[in-house]
């Protein structure tokens, strides 16, 4: 069995770790090459025209995994969460038509999340013993958490570093180092080391970064290829980026703490209540709440990322302008027609606007 997975942020690091920990050999796990224009083009070619960007990108990624010889593919599924429930069905049929006889194993991300992920790992590893599966699982998650910790720091440093690009280089080294680490202790040490290195990066003393929160649909927020490295570009413009939506947070709460009745979005949902009083699927409810949250916390602006025709985010986009908490929102629709230069121009204009607003607020 050769298992292939689609790319989604740093998820591949965790999956790779788990599989190798459980004794899978190189030939049993296929990590597709990093997403490129080719991935996108293949995804577009074989998807329904009006499908959303995450569908097209994951399909492209899966096709690339199949080309490398994967015969079993992992994909998310679930009810009550927009089109995602249909991803596996549609993609399985398309791959079959393309002549890849791949078998799909699906991870349920709406109900019985933990059980379905553990089952996925067990399937992938020919029924390894339970304690090994669980220990490998936590090791993989530990790596994601470490990556997210480093990423949280790098977002702040990018805005203030005196030589642009240094922090990003260190971050990329950190991803590589954490990916190669072989024990939990080593991972923690590496994370600490790189965070220290990032904090020592020479800073521009005059920098007074604008603070922007990123909200929106989870795939385009987390996957840098889908949002054209928006965080790096904002960093270059001297903007400190904050986002609450990270993979390790999703795993921590959705897989464990939610079962104990702890809801990470409780505060956000409460803030959204006056404008949107129930879940609309996807991340629409959270987007509205987070906008209010960032406004209350005194941020300068919010960037709302959504794939084109994403239903929950369209609801959020329609509701956002009516909130009493006033904060500039830039809605960026991500799809295959998006061009980097066009996006940069919009970002520059937005950042100029935020700077103007802040100077006026400070009376300068």
């Amino acid at each position, binding site marked *: 069995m050769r298992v292939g997975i689609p790319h989604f942020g740093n998820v591949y690091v965790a999956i790779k770790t788990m599989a190798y920990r459980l004794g899978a050999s190189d030939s049993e796990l296929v990590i597709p090459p990093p997403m490129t224009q080719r991935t996108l083009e293949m995804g577009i070619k074989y998807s*329904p*025209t*009006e*499908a*959303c960007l995450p569908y097209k990108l994951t399909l492209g990624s899966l096709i690339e995994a199949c080309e490398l010889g994967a015969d079993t593919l992992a994909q998310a599924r679930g*009810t*009550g*969460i*927009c*089109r995602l*429930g*249909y991803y596996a*069905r*549609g993609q399985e*049929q398309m791959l079959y*038509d393309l002549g890849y006889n791949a078998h799909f194993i699906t991870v349920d991300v709406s109900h019985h999340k933990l059980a379905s992920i553990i089952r996925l790992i067990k399937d992938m590893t020919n029924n390894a013993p339970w304690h090994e599966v669980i220990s490998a699982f936590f090791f993989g998650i530990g790596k994601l958490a470490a990556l997210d910790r480093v990423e949280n720091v790098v977002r702040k440093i990018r805005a203030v570093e005196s030589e642009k690009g240094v922090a990003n280089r260190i971050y990329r080294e950190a991803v590589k180092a954490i990916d190669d680490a072989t024990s939990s202790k080593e991972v923690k040490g590496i994370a600490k080391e790189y965070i220290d290195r990032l904090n020592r990066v020479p800073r521009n003393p005059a920098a007074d970064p604008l603070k922007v929160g990123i909200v929106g649909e989870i795939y385009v927020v987390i996957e840098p290829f889908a949002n054209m490295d928006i965080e790096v570009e904002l960093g270059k413009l001297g903007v400190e980026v904050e986002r609450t939506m990270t993979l390790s947070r999703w795993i921590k709460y959705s897989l464990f703490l939610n079962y104990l009745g702890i809801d990470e979005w409780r505060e956000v949902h409460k803030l959204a209540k006056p*404008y*949107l*009083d*129930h*879940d*609309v*699927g*996807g991340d*629409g409810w959270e987007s509205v709440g987070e906008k209010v949250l960032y406004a209350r916390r005194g941020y300068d602006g919010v960037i709302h990322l959504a794939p*084109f*025709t*994403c*239903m*929950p985010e*369209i*609801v959020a*986009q*329609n*509701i956002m*302008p*009516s909130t009493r908490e006033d904060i500039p929102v830039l*809605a960026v*629709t991500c799809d295959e027609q998006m061009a980097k230069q066009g996006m940069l121009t919009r970002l520059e204009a937005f950042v100029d606007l935020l700077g103007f607003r802040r100077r006026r607020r400070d009376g300068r």
Partner: protein
Amino acid sequence: MIKVGIPRALLYYQYYPMWKTFFESLGAEVVVSPRTNKAILNSGVTRAVADTCLPVKLFLGHVVSLIDKCDYIFAPAVINLGRKTYNCSKIIGLPNMTRALIPECPLVLAPQIDLGKWRYHLYHNIYELGRRFTSNPFKIQKAMEEAWKSNLAYRNKMSQEGFTCLEAISGVRRDEPRPDSGFDSSPLLTIAVIGHPYVIYDDYLNHRLLLQLQLMGTKILVPEMVPEEELDAAATRLVGAPHWSFETDIIGAGEYYLEAKVDGLINLSVFGCGPDSMMVSFVKHRARELGTPFLHLSLDEHASAGGVLTRLEAFLDMIKRREKICV
């Protein structure tokens, strides 16, 4: 008398008789917005974000046209119509979008309909809705029962007697329009039109597509003409357990009519419809397997009657020529 405004859009086509009976037996007067027209379209389009799909924009336009004509607007948040299925996000968030985009609109009555939860939750929400009109719980219960009866009668009228939605609502059956003499009407083609009721039956949105088809000498079949159980069964045969509450309209009806060997299948959909973008590819795939001609018409506010007509004519000509070659 309290006036309740019901926009003639989205779920109106499926549930209007039920809603009407409910409010009228509670002693309220029901006001329905006029048929979709240019003014309604324009006022809807200017309110919503550009990416929003056309039926939701039309809904907003209908709400705008009801301002000052009623005391309440009825816009339920229909979360699902069965366990483990889900409605489109835009329908779930409809009351909130209405409040946000049309601040001047009358109070929006928005009961949550969530059949995935306990039955009590549904009854409680309906009771809360009825409390605005009467304080007598028995009256509310009676209204609810009557509403459900009229809903069943409405469904039966369509599935048993072959009425279309609009005919069943008005209670008057229109004569089938006679085909234009210009068309060769000797072999009557059977064309199934699948899609959401709010697209198929909104004459302004789809440029009177059903009428045009009839004028071209075809017999039209719509999803409502099949009993719901059979649609469910057909949907399960094609893709397995349903994911969306309205999956039967597209996948169920598509599979049912493809198996029934219709001459052609037309999918009527709107640009940017999330659920359709996924479901249609399955029906298309199946149609290709069975060799049935399939036309996917995607409409938006820029579609023109001429363009739609040309594509329809080409589609029908293609079917006719194909049959001549085969015979």
